[in-house]
């Protein structure tokens, strides 16, 4: 099993074309913990999350400046292989996106198979352990050959989590993983996040402040001055402190619902 790693952002600034989406974010995300990124829409929390595994640059015209260190290795160094970065830093998206042409089994092992793992026993083991870790094994073990698109929304999202952890990443990024799900599926995934932090560094973007309070150890509050301004990190501290005794007036306004 891979070791969870520390993520250090130093002056990370991200652009879409000429639009500056986030401005010099500096923060350290500790290994084996859950860090929540909260803030109003457009504050750049998703952009920051996507710059941690270099998904930001997939958008045409998007670029990132600054340093992003994974255990002291800068992933924006020109010599770094972007596919290796993404293998080490998994991601779960807002909407479940299982591959529609693949079965449940093929979806889970897609990351391994498309990266050259062929041995059947290895794939079988990875599929079972990932599905068990994602609390989906019991529901799908008798229909692994059926299409992943036939599952419910919550099951699909857990399938996507299983797919992400099957490649044994060191960091797991989650971009509002529950926003398309009902409360019961949301609860299942929150429980799962609590278990995943024993093995991974988890970073989760969420609009739901109760969720941030429930699942995370530390919380980062992002905000913008007004539309068109870049997002900035306002406060980053232990979740209990952010929610009970925030250091900044803006954070307090946001979490008490007076703003945003």
């Amino acid at each position, binding site marked *: 099993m891979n070791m969870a790693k520390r993520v250090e952002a130093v002056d990370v600034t991200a652009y879409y074309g000429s639009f500056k989406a986030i401005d010099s974010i500096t923060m350290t995300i500790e290994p084996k913990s859950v860090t929540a990124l909260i803030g109003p829409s457009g504050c750049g929390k998703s952009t920051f999350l996507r710059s941690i595994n270099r*998904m930001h640059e997939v958008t045409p015209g998007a670029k990132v400046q600054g340093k992003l260190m994974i255990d002291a290795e800068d992933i924006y160094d020109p010599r770094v292989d972007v*596919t290796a970065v993404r293998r080490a830093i998994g991601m779960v998206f807002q909407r479940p996106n299982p*591959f529609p*042409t693949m079965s449940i089994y093929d979806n889970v092992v*897609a990351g391994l198979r*498309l990266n050259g793992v062929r041995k059947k026993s290895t794939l079988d083991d990875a599929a079972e352990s990932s599905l068990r870790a994602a609390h989906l094994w019991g529901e799908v073990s008798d229909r692994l*050959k*059926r299409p992943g698109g036939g599952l419910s929304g919550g099951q699909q999202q857990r399938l996507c989590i299983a797919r992400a952890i099957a490649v044994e990443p060191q960091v797991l990024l989650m971009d509002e993983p529950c926003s398309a799900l009902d409360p019961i599926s949301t609860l299942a995934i929150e429980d799962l996040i609590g278990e995943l932090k024993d093995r991974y560094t988890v970073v989760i973007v969420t609009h739901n402040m109760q969720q941030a309070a429930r699942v995370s150890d530390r919380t980062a509050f992002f905000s913008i001055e007004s539309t068109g301004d870049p997002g900035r990190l306002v406060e980053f501290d232990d979740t209990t402190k952010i929610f009970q005794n925030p250091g900044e007036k803006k954070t307090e306004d946001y979490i008490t619902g007076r703003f945003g």
Partner: protein
Amino acid sequence: MTTLSQNGSLLAGSLRRRRLPKALPPLLGVAALGVSAAGILGTGAGGWVLTVVVAAVLFVLATLIVSGAVEGGRRARDRVATIAVYGAFILALIPLGSVVATLLAKGTGRIDAEFFYHSMNNITALDSGGGAYHAIIGTLQQVGIAAVLAIPLGLAAAVYIVEYGRGRLTTVIRFFVDVMTGIPSIVAGLFVLAFWVLIVTPVFNHGRPGYSGFAAALALTVLMLPTIVRSAEEMLRLVPQALREGSYALGVPKWKTIMRVVLPTAAPGIVTGVMLSIARAAGETAPVLLVAGGTPAINFNPFSGNQESLSYFVYEQAGAASQFAPGRAWTAALTLIAIVAILTIAAKLLARRSTIGR
């Protein structure tokens, strides 16, 4: 308010309306046909086409009047619109059904062993017998080679436009693909004649132009490419960006994402586009006439010597002044349709298998 109180519905607090009995509209149709037949066929004023047209007009008028009186104007207009939509659908089906019916009626006459196992070698137009074996071979080889050339090229171009293309070059490619879509097949044939047959092949052929099935395949490739590129491009654009990102997030390289996630997802639609282009190519006569030349004999080698094709065979036989030639032409046309239909069905089944059963 008077109409409402007449119907007695809203004032009575009911949501019900008076409706025509279900059997009445079809009865009106039959009655219209009967009246029209009696008036036109009975008096000898016209044939059955005029009868049907007049019956349709009568049917619409009767529906308007009866439905308008019982159900009100809105419902009457709804009924007339329904009749118009069904009528348009039937009109659109008539040519298609007529072609299939005619082919089946006239094309089955020569379905015999001789037709499928013999060529027209040493058989003149005035003789009975003869077959299209050489033409079937030619069509399969020419379309096969054209498909082998056009499908990879077309898919690669579509992948470039959608996945890699940025800026000017892509715009230029798309523009020329659009222009190519409109190229008449005779122009594609002339292009291959001028470039391949008259300039390139003499170099390898002791200075003589080399007519061949391969030259026809080249012309068909030119015709197939734009259809494949444009249809594949549309299908690739429909693949959600979320799937590509899901694959990238697993550390899968871009080319593998395209090969293993994007193309399989778009496969059913791409297959439809490819089959359309193959069907078009199989039916082309002009390029074969110009660069393969046609021959009454069997030629298994597409790279050397004249070759026949089914569409060209139909053209020849349909134009020959002989009581036996039209039968050969009809059966060849039916064979061509059958080949295209079988290929299309096979391709669809294959595409469905490549995704997974739902």
